[in-house]
């Protein structure tokens, strides 16, 4: 089995979903998560103040957060919504699950293979770019063209997709046969994209349309998405699972597929503010590994009002979480970059770049870029923001957290006051020449200006 999966551990997780203690979900939210988190934050003195550096460089703090997260994970576990039961693991079980994670995996096939490796903070090693229009709604007619513009970029090593709006002109209804139809259509269109750009073996994040196990099973099957692609499973906030996620985990193990676990702890939610989110990043990653046996580990904390992972408080918490995991586990971790701004704005480069750069020096193994304008507008993404992030990330590989802090500080200052302004920008189709799939001059110039500014201000070879 891939991912260092242990089938017995997976079966054990399923047992816990069936036999764990029955619990009211509201009690879980308030007490198991809320009260326990507050207690642990105090016990370990995890206090991310508003004037703390946006990128932590105190290894002791990161290690203390890991210890706090491990205790939180062992005391909180996971809640299964379908059975109403509390799934718990001992510290020893959690550490065993973490120890079985491979520190390097190779995704994709042939000339398009890519290796994702464990990294530590300040390490001079390659950060993989997992790029694309993450979940951006797109119509059937323009799906291939839209994605072709991303897939042809050499900087993008693992490819993620937008979300089909309809399938064969019908609404896509979660859990219905239409989800199965849409999953197959998405896979066929995606493989057409890969053929067109000459990258048939490029690993693809899938199944993007899947809301339930219906889509996962329909998409990852004979002639469908491949074991070498990146198959996704997530938690529901906070640290909750459901049958359809567990079914997906079992299916991925059975078809020997790589999988990416992801979750979105909420800033302002049951874990609280910045300190709580940092704790959630660690705790959630640990229990997610035990629950789903995934290898790739994607964390996308979200601000409860603006739905972005780039809010300064969220960014600060996520960096600390990534550092805690990078220093104390072999998990291959990524930030999920979800800005409030959209393509066609200057600010999107800095809003995505700040998080990308901070994560690279904090020890992430790869970067998910980007779900522009929080992913809610049709065609609302472009390759240029991904390319900017790729160039920036590769430029800061090998720099220290203290070196990169002024860059992150400056970038955050470019967007911190406009995050509620809903600067969604323009859709891809207004920013690109659809014959050449090149950006229009105005948009390209904005991109070049952003690069030039970073080079001039910070002497970066970007």
């Amino acid at each position, binding site marked *: 089995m891939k991912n260092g999966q242990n089938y017995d551990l997976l079966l054990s997780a399923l047992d816990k979903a069936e036999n764990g203690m029955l619990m009211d979900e509201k009690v879980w939210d308030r007490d198991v998560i809320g009260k326990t988190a*507050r207690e642990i934050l105090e016990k370990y003195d995890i206090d991310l103040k508003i004037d703390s550096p946006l990128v932590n460089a105190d290894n002791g703090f990161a290690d203390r957060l890991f210890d706090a997260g491990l205790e939180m994970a062992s005391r909180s576990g996971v809640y299964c919504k379908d059975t109403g039961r509390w799934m718990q693991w001992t510290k020893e079980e959690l550490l065993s699950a973490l120890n079985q994670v491979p520190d390097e995996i190779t995704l994709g096939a042939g000339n398009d293979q890519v290796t994702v490796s464990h990294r530590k903070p300040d390490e001079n090693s390659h950060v993989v770019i997992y790029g694309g229009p993450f979940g951006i709604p797109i119509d059937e007619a323009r799906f291939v063209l839209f994605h072709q513009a991303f897939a042809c970029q050499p900087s993008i090593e693992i490819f993620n997709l937008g979300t089909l709006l309809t399938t064969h002109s019908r609404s896509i209804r979660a859990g219905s046969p239409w989800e199965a139809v849409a999953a197959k259509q998405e896979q066929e269109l995606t493989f057409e994209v890969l053929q067109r750009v000459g990258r048939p073996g490029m690993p693809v994040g899938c199944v993007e349309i899947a809301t339930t196990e219906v889509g996962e099973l329909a998409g990852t099957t004979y002639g469908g998405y491949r074991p070498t692609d990146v198959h996704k499973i997530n938690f529901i906030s906070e640290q909750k699972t459901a049958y359809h996620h567990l079914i997906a985990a079992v299916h991925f193990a059975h078809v020997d597929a790589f999988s990416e676990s992801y979750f979105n702890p909420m800033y302002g939610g049951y874990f*609280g503010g910045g300190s709580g989110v940092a704790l959630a990043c660690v705790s959630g990653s640990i229990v997610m590994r035990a629950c789903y046996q995934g290898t790739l580990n994607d964390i996308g904390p979200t601000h409860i009002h603006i739905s972005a992972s780039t809010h300064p408080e969220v960014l600060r918490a996520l960096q600390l979480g990534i550092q805690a995991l990078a220093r104390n586990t072999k998990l291959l971790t990524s930030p999920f970059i979800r800005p409030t701004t959209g393509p066609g704005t200057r600010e999107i480069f800095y809003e995505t770049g700040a998080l990308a750069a901070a994560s690279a020096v904090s020890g992430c193994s790869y970067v998910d870029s980007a779900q522009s304008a929080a992913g809610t507008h049709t065609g609302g993404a472009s390759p240029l923001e991904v390319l900017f992030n790729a160039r920036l990330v590769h430029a800061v590989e090998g720099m220290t957290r203290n070196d990169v802090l002024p860059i992150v500080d400056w970038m955050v200052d470019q967007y911190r006051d406009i995050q509620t302004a809903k600067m969604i920008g323009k859709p891809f189709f207004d920013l690109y020449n659809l014959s050449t799939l090149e950006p229009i001059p105005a948009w390209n110039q904005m991109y070049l200006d952003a690069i030039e500014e970073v080079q001039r201000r910070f002497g970066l070879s970007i």
Partner: protein
Amino acid sequence: MHDIFLPEMVTAADVVQRITNEVITPKIEETHSTKIASAGKVLLATVRGDLREIGKNMVGLMLRANGFNVIDQGITVSPSEIIIQAEKEKVDIIGSSSLLPTRVPYMKDFIDYLNTNGGRGKYAVIIGGAATTPEFALNLFADGIGNSAAEADERKNKLTRRQLF
């Protein structure tokens, strides 16, 4: 300064609810013949199959804090179940939410169900969640849309007057 987040808000709301139900309301009704008027009665639910409810819960908290009587029907509720409960509780407003685009057709089901059964005029209907947009809300003939609990607070006074667009 110590910040307050969702766990503290939930606890505070529970305490306020208990004080209101067990102390204030009985006392006032003891001395007055009329019941306390609320800002309106709201039924909240996530659509069928949608397990995510933090946003709905926060909207419920905001509305309660502003004097609305909120009935939370929970998650993954079918259209008929929503309507039955709305009738039973005689609500003024029905709110449904969905995080993901593939759940949104179930929202349309619920409004179609209301239209078919002649109940549409009885209730103000609001929708919310990351998957919804103002255009979608207008196409559904919903009365309003919100994408965060903060918007629920901003627009609360317009809810019962159906003046959200």
